[in-house]
Structures are given as C-alpha cells and as structure tokens.
C-alpha cells in the first residue's frame, strides 16, 4: 500500500458510482481504476466516454453501471463532447438557466482512444483551456477488439498486430509518452497514476477536479486478459510497474514536476517483465535493453523533479 496504513481503506468513500454488474473480465484493473476515479470525483460529475472496454462493459443495453450522467461517443470524440458540455452548461449557468454549481466535466478513453485516434481532439480541448479532466486508462493496447497494438504498447510486447515470432520481437516501437505530450500543452495539471496505489490515484483525481482549466490523468491499468497474466495478479503487476520505474508516479502542477512516489529499493525490470505472457519471448539481452532505457528515463524524471 502507498503512503497510508492499511486501515486507511476504511476511510475511502463508500458510494459506488461505477456499480457491480459491469461485464469487465475477472480481475480487470482498468475497471478498478474507473471505480476509484469515480469515488474521488463524487456525484457532481458528467462523463463522456470513448469507445473501448470500459464503455462496452459498463453499458450493454438496457442497463448501465453508471450512477452519474454518462454518454458514449465515437472513439475519437470524448474530449470534444465534454468541451461542449462544459461550455454549454457554463453559458446556461451564466444566464441563470441552470443553477450555478461546481460540476466535474470528465472525458475518458483508453490508450488507443487517447494516444492514437482521439489525440487531435484532446489536443484541441487542452489548447482551448476547457475546465475539464481527461482520464486515459492505459492498458497498453486496443483490448476491446482483441489485443491490437497501439502507440502506447511498450517495446517488445506481443499483441495480435505485433506478434512475436522468429523475426519479430513483438512491438518494435517505444511507448508514446502521452503525459509529456499533455505537459507540452502547458495545462495546469498532469499526473500519472495506477490503481495499485489507490490513495495516490484518488488524491490526484481530487487535485485535478479542484484545479481550474484542463487536467490530464494517465492511469496505467493492468489488463490480465491482454497481458496474459492470472486474474489475481493485476494489482501485483501494477505495483511492479511502479517499483521497477517502468511506470513512475509523478505529477506536473503549474510547471513543476513532482515524483509522488519514489520506489525504494528500485526493483529490476526483470521482475515486472517475467511472468507476463506478452513478454514471454524476450531474451535476457532484450530485458537488459528495457532496463537501460527505464533507468535513463527515470533519471531524466528525477532531474526534472529536483529542478522543481
């Protein structure tokens, strides 16, 4: 557990705004991420969600797992639609047609929706400065359609469109650094999070909600089905991603970097890689090269956070 004692779990919001009965696979940490994000946001929230696992599993007609106003929009459009909701409702509040109150306007999408197909719309929404939160649930592939690679799939991962074989190592490009792309838009708040560190995650969501203007949250969401791991290990692998520095937890607030969790000791990336079916074909040399890259990327981040 992060930061708090185990008993802190009992202090967490009881309200389930993302209810039981959703159809996510057993042990889906992406569904857990949604559940925790909603706990932190509370009821005064409107969600626009891109096509993807979380949309499909939460809204098969005639039911919904959502307890807040929620709309499914085309794959690329969640940030455009939430921009419209925000601008429209704020205009109506200004004109006295709606009671003035604080509402969280939230767009959500997977890594495919965010890093590939909805990138332009997200960039526009951040650039226009809407008072919104964008949440990317990154399970490192297009999972809903059967594990196709996205630009957020890490190097070496085998997917159905980057299969490992005699010649191929699996994904041959490096993971796109989406949080840095959000930071390049000079928005007030960007953070990475992982449901294996639930308190860190919920704190960041609360911060994102409190800050005026666009906020971007990038949540590593372990997918047992696509990563080819046992369902009970989804939390464990999220923790390993963080403790090996493959996925560092940090935030960027009004121009300042801050590492919110420093693993101690830093574990070898091998502990994260081995045991995941999607990396099963990698050689010790391949793992060494991932280790090296992880180290240099983490050092860059450390330096940025020391500069403040």
């Amino acid at each position, binding site marked *: 557990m992060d930061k708090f004692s185990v008993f802190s779990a009992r202090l967490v919001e009881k309200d389930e705004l993302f209810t039981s009965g959703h159809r996510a696979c057993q042990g889906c940490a992406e569904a857990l991420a949604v559940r925790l994000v909603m706990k932190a946001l509370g009821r005064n929230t409107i969600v626009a969600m891109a096509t993807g696992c979380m949309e499909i599993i939460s809204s098969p*007609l*005639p039911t919904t797992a959502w307890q807040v106003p929620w709309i499914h929009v085309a794959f690329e459009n969640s940030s455009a639609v939430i921009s419209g909701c925000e601008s429209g409702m704020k205009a109506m509040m200004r004109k006295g047609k709606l009671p003035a109150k604080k509402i969280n306007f939230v767009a959500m999408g997977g890594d495919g929706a965010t890093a590939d197909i909805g990138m332009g719309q997200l960039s526009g929404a951040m650039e226009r400065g809407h008072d919104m939160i964008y949440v990317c649930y990154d399970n490192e592939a297009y999972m809903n359609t059967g594990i196709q690679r996205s630009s957020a799939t890490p190097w070496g991962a085998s997917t159905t469109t980057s299969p490992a074989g005699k010649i191929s190592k699996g994904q041959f490009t490096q993971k796109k650094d989406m949080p840095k792309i959000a930071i390049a838009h000079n928005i007030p708040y960007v953070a990475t999070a992982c449901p294996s560190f639930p308190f860190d995650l919920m704190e960041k969501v609360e911060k994102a909600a409190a800050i005026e203007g666009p906020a971007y949250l990038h949540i590593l969401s372990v997918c047992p089905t696509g990563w080819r791991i046992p369902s009970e290990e989804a939390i464990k692998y999220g923790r390993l991603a963080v403790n090996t520095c493959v996925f560092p937890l940090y935030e960027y607030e009004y121009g300042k970097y801050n590492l919110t969790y420093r693993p101690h000791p830093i574990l070898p990336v091998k502990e994260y890689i081995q045991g995941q079916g999607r990396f099963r074909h990698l050689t010790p040399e391949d793992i060494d090269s991932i280790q090296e890259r992880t180290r240099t990327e983490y050092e860059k981040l450390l330096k940025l956070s020391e500069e403040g």
Partner: protein
Amino acid sequence: MARPIEEIKWQDLEMGAAVSERGSAREYKTGSWRSLQPVVDQDQCIRCGVCWLFCPDAAIKRSEDGSFEADLEYCKGCGICARECPVGCISVVIEEV
C-alpha cells in the same frame, strides 16, 4: 429497483438508447461467472477493508458488525482480494455446483 433484464423488451427502450435508471447493471448478477470463491476467515480478519478497496467489481460487502465478505451475487472469483489481503486470511475455494 430496475425490472429484471429479461422483462425489458426492445419496445421499452428509450430514444437514443438512453438508459434513465442509473446503476441498473446491478440487475445483471456477475456472480454466475465464478468458478472460484473467496472465503474470509473471520477469526483472523483484522477488518482493514483492503479487500474491499481493491475489488474491481465492488463485490466485497461490509456487514453491520464490521466484518467483510464477498458478495456472491457479483463476485467473479478473480482472486485479487485473497492475493492482496495483508494478513492472508482469504482462501480461494473451488465453487460447489
């Protein structure tokens, strides 16, 4: 509470595929997916709530006496709660059918 899913016909659907009853997914009992069942040893349980916090299905319920146990209507049997319990007092048993 919502009507049972089987009773809702296509003529009952709202325009634009809207669903006006929030949280109605609870009518769908995912517990039927389960082949393994988490069982809490209440004598060892320290009532910390970690199992509840990590369940992706919000399928750990807390009774009035403060004890935690799986809600078998929804628990899919993923085993996360057993894996994450800090005292290791949840065992996973094969479901009797």
